[in-house]
């Protein structure tokens, strides 16, 4: 058997590798991007229309198997980014997945409009709905279907290219928000962003983070995010990008079997910047050992008899 095909086709975009560095992990440094092996698409840091200084105070706290972060979307703003950063990244040969955070609908609209001028250099717009909706009571935009609908009501008409919605696990009814994303015209859903956690400082007895709560990522959340992917698959017709806690080819394969067409990897880059290259090799070995020619055959296979089911489908076809 020739080496298994890892290509991921999701709603209009085909990636040579199913693995994508998640948003907020890598510096937007063209030389570093160029050196990344094992990925074709790369997420930018979260951008907002206005520049943001991010959160004051401690921004990181380790937990068992996990990492709490409260970076607060520090970024130069969409316009400065387009001027100063985009040209370099566009020359790296990587497909840019632009992570755009929704602060309020007005600035979302401006950001999408401005980005439209660079739509040839941006492969995917990844709409991050984990930002608090200040107008709407402070819960994140993605916590209820209404917020998802409202954000897409602005972003979808404004963006002609491929649009993914990155959902938040804090949603009251997660599947409902995924369905709202589909109904609102998203080409894919990213399942999911960080899990809300907290930490205290035992020197002071106060919350460790200025904002009290922070987002949990890393291996600790893997079983939780995998469950969301598993439960969302089959409930939406658009592709799912799995995200949360992936640290090995085995984890990535689980995400695919559960229903993901591609997989974002974040925190594990902190352990090994070069992790995706190894994961691609290992993924191919895993597929080869199971006689699977193409990863795409396995998307959602856990719902249809696992590897045996996939074999049957193949021979039936």
């Amino acid at each position, binding site marked *: 058997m020739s080496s298994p095909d890892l290509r991921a086709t999701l709603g209009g975009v085909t990636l040579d590798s199913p693995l994508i560095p998640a948003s907020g992990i890598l510096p937007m440094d063209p030389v570093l991007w160029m050196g990344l092996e094992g990925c074709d698409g790369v997420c930018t840091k979260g951008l907002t229309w206005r520049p943001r200084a991010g959160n004051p105070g401690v921004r990181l706290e380790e937990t068992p198997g996990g*990492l709490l972060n409260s970076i607060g979307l520090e970024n130069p703003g969409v316009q400065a980014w387009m001027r100063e950063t985009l040209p370099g990244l566009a020359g790296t040969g990587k497909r840019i997945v632009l992570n755009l955070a929704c602060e309020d609908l007005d600035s979302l609209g401006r950001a999408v409009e401005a980005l439209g001028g660079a739509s040839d250099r941006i492969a995917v717009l990844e709409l991050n709905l984990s930002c608090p909706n200040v107008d709407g009571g402070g819960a994140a935009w993605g916590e209820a279907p209404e917020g998802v609908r409202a954000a897409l009501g602005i972003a979808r008409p404004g963006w002609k290219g491929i649009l993914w919605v990155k959902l938040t696990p804090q949603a009251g009814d997660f599947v409902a928000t995924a369905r709202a994303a589909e109904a609102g015209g998203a080409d894919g859903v990213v399942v999911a962003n960080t899990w809300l956690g907290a930490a205290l400082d035992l020197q002071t007895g106060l919350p460790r983070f200025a904002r009290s709560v922070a987002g949990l990522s890393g291996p600790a959340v893997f079983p939780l995010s995998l469950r969301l992917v598993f439960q969302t698959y089959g409930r939406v017709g658009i592709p799912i990008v799995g995200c949360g806690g992936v640290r090995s080819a085995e984890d990535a394969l689980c995400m695919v079997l559960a229903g993901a067409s591609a997989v974002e990897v974040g925190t594990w880059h902190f352990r090994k910047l070069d992790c995706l290259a190894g994961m691609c090799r290992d993924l191919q070995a895993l597929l080869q050992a199971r006689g699977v020619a193409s990863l795409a055959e396995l998307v959602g296979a856990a719902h249809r008899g696992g590897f045996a089911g996939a074999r049957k489908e193949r021979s039936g076809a």
Partner: protein
Amino acid sequence: MSVCGGHVFSEVRGTLVSRISLGTGAAWLEIRLPGPIPPVRAGQFALLSLPEVCDPLLGRPLAVARAQEDRVSFLCRRAGRGSGLLADLIPGQSVDLRLPLGRPVEVPQDRPVWFLGGSVGAAPLLMAPVPPGFRGWVLGFRDASWGPALEHLRGLLAGLPLTVACDDGSLGPKGNAVSALGERVRPGDCVVACGPEGMLQALRDLSRAGGFQAILGLERRMACGFGGCLGCRITRRDGTSARVCVDGPFFDGEELGDDVFA
């Protein structure tokens, strides 16, 4: 090998080849690397993590105290669980390293220079070439439990002028590194320092009052060490932000915003 902001670094799995216990509080760790790594210079650091386990999840930043051929050495203080696990490693165990990280410290060649270390804060300066105007080392320790660490450092610094201060007076005259430096530093001198926040802050304040330059090695929580996570962000006096991992860890005290020591 990866590159970020012009820095070239490697990710390798090393093996602890020797461990010298320096009392209860610290250990000197010598690690053999599997092959060549980019050159390491004084002021640069590594992130060290335990292979195969997710807890602790992140690497711990430690200054490279020595780099020779295929060996690197660290002076590791037992600050909490992660550094304690590193300090307790047994020869033969593996360690994952990302290194070298950060910018080398730039020691002025055109003026009198002091090196100031708050206990293990000496580590990042151990590899620094002695500058032409070198005036001496000043080391500060808390108490007698740091005796073995002091003796180890004395060995490494043999031949260089060395002043020792000790909070409780047991290892040297009572006082801290900054007070021991005290009147001896002159306007126009440069003090390159690394150690606890309190020490750095005192030195920065003194340098502003005394008209000398202070180059300070900062410590911040780090997830990546390559400028990605923005966990180590600080504010410069001019309002711009800097990442301790790639723009530092050594900064001129004049550059630093007032909230850096908060």
